[in-house]
């Protein structure tokens, strides 16, 4: 069984919801990421979503754009990100890791080479923001052959027919984008989300994670009441930004890790309450 599937099965047994933090790999410097991943697990993360920095992150709001820019100052590449995950796997063989990023770095590496390397590094799922299933006929089978779950987004504009199409290709979990907008958008309507989740549930048995717009323990709990997983990104990356350049790298990294842990712990508590 894949790590992602196993993780959701276990949570279901315990009647718990998955907490999925997103951070950009290499933000604000390459040294922080490995420690941050471990600390997020200790603070209650069930799955880690790791952003692969890209020069042109079209689907991201200013917060995550800047995270990409900070990571790219150090030239954090897809190869570097896989290296970090490999190190993470030396001491953690349980927590699923999902890559989230854009297609071009993967194209340049080559689908086969990438899938092979990602599998060897211990990646579990790949969310490629800018490739819809219609364009992914050569891509999805390569991911699946390397035991990587292709994770797809559904959005408020996705029709029911498209949902069915997308869910046919997806595995692991479905990621529902809760707002019309880019990452970091604020207005999130829980009732509306619940209505959409009802429709999604008609077309798939996969667990659904909801993201884009989850800010704090309160919104996390509200979404946790209707979905199997909550994804929190910009709220964490904001904490990176606030502490990135105020201090030396070592001190800044320590502060960032502490702040992110605090937020995740509060969300964990709210989700489990």
């Amino acid at each position, binding site marked *: 069984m894949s790590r992602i599937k196993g993780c959701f099965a276990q949570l279901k047994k315990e009647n718990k919801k998955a907490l999925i933090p997103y951070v950009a790999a290499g933000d604000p410097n390459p040294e922080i990421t490995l420690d941050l991943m471990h600390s997020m697990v200790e603070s209650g993360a069930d799955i880690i979503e790791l952003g692969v920095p890209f020069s042109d992150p079209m689907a991201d709001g200013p917060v995550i754009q800047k995270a990409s820019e900070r990571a790219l100052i150090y030239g954090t*590449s897809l190869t570097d990100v896989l290296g970090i995950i490999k190190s993470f796997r030396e001491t953690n063989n349980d927590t699923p890791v999902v890559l989230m990023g854009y297609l071009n770095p993967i194209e340049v590496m080559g689908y086969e080479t990438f899938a092979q390397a990602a599998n060897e590094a211990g990646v579990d799922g790949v969310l490629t923001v800018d490739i819809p299933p219609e364009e992914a006929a050569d891509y999805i089978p390569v991911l699946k052959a390397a035991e990587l779950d292709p994770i797809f987004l559904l959005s408020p504009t996705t029709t029911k027919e498209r949902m069915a199409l997308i869910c046919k290709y997806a595995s692991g979990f479905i990621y529902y984008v809760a707002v019309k907008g880019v990452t970091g958008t604020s207005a999130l309507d829980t009732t509306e989300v619940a209505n959409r989740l009802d429709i999604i549930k008609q077309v798939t048995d996969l667990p659904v994670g909801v993201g884009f717009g989850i800010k704090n323990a309160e919104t996390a709990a509200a979404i946790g009441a209707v979905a199997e997983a909550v994804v929190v990104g910009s709220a964490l990356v904001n904490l990176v930004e606030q502490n990135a350049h105020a201090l030396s790298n070592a001190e800044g990294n320590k502060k960032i890790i502490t702040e992110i842990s605090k937020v995740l712990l509060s969300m964990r508590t709210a989700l489990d309450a």
Partner: protein
Amino acid sequence: MTTQTQSQPEKRLSDMPDEHGHFGQYGGIFVPETLMEPLNELKQAYIHYLQDPEFIAELDNDLSNYVGRPSPLYFAERWSRELGGAKIYLKREDLNHTGAHKVNNTVGQMLLAKRMGKTRIIAETGAGQHGVATATVAARLGLECVVYMGAEDIQRQALNVYRMKLLGAHVISVESGSRTLKDALNEAMRDWVTNIDNTFYIIGTAAGPHPYPAMVRDFQAIIGREAKEQIMTHEGRLPDALVACIGGGSNAIGLFYPFVDDMEVSIYGVEAAGHGLETGEHAAPLCAGKPGVLHGNRTYLMEDRHGQIIPTHSVSAGLDYPGVGPEHSWLKDIGRANYVAVTDEEALKGFHDLTLTEGIMPALESSHAIAYVTKLAPTMDKDQIIIMNLSGRGDKDIHTVATIAGIEF
């Protein structure tokens, strides 16, 4: 190529793209899920209205009476004589309302926006020409208009920024990434994702996700259709060569498209070699880049070995873009069109050459086409014919040209 003219190819080159927007392996739709349905709606509207006689009549009327079409096809007699080779005809898109070919497309997309009931218009711009052309048509319909422009470009195209403001548009300075056209496009996409209910995104070049490359081409193809008719009137035959500059590729595909099935016509697209292709400081993805995925389509790109898009350079803001419309990538790979590049220096010389020999001051973008004609024409016979797309006028660039010459006002 010439052998192919004998046997009629099964599928004409002009039949592209397929229904998913593919030109061979290029084009397509590579966008976040939120944009899939809006793009589908746009595609339906585009397919529907481009066959609707009422829509076409309104478009034709606007093109004649607002834009000032047809634009002349002018025989540049003195310039041709000085170069000592082919006869050179200039397609005078510089004489359009707002001074460039960009307005052909904005008039068309604005009519679609109106039909689709959208009340808010957004656009990206590099040189500011597309921004001005968008602000112009938005003013005419009284629609809210937001133009995204890289902070870098706002500096070098101050005049066009002011023109947009006079036309009532909000110009938003984009500070992310390399702060140029590609980042403005990202920002416009983000706006569109966020405001899809009431917003129409007018992309300014033949790039982006399907249906934009095909749609922009179809609105710009008026250039080539007119040129074909006009050259038949002037010369009674098709030209031997077409030349146009390539930023995203809209003025070029507009001229080329009606001729792509005429295999006896050679096609040349001219990219910006900036400081020289060998320096890496250029904007010539077709000449020096590789295929990849950016801004919703697969096409030739300028990228590093990790797949990050790299900064471009050109003296001309309108060519300063790391990608290119997917149809050009395809025309390159199948060998139907030739893509070449000229440097900043050559383009500047082209600017002065045309100004002095013909009394026509070209845009720096168009000056790249001029510089290539300067090389091509002398290699051709005196009875051969070149049609060059003079995509825009040079008023917006006078400041840049003067600064390079060391002149301050």
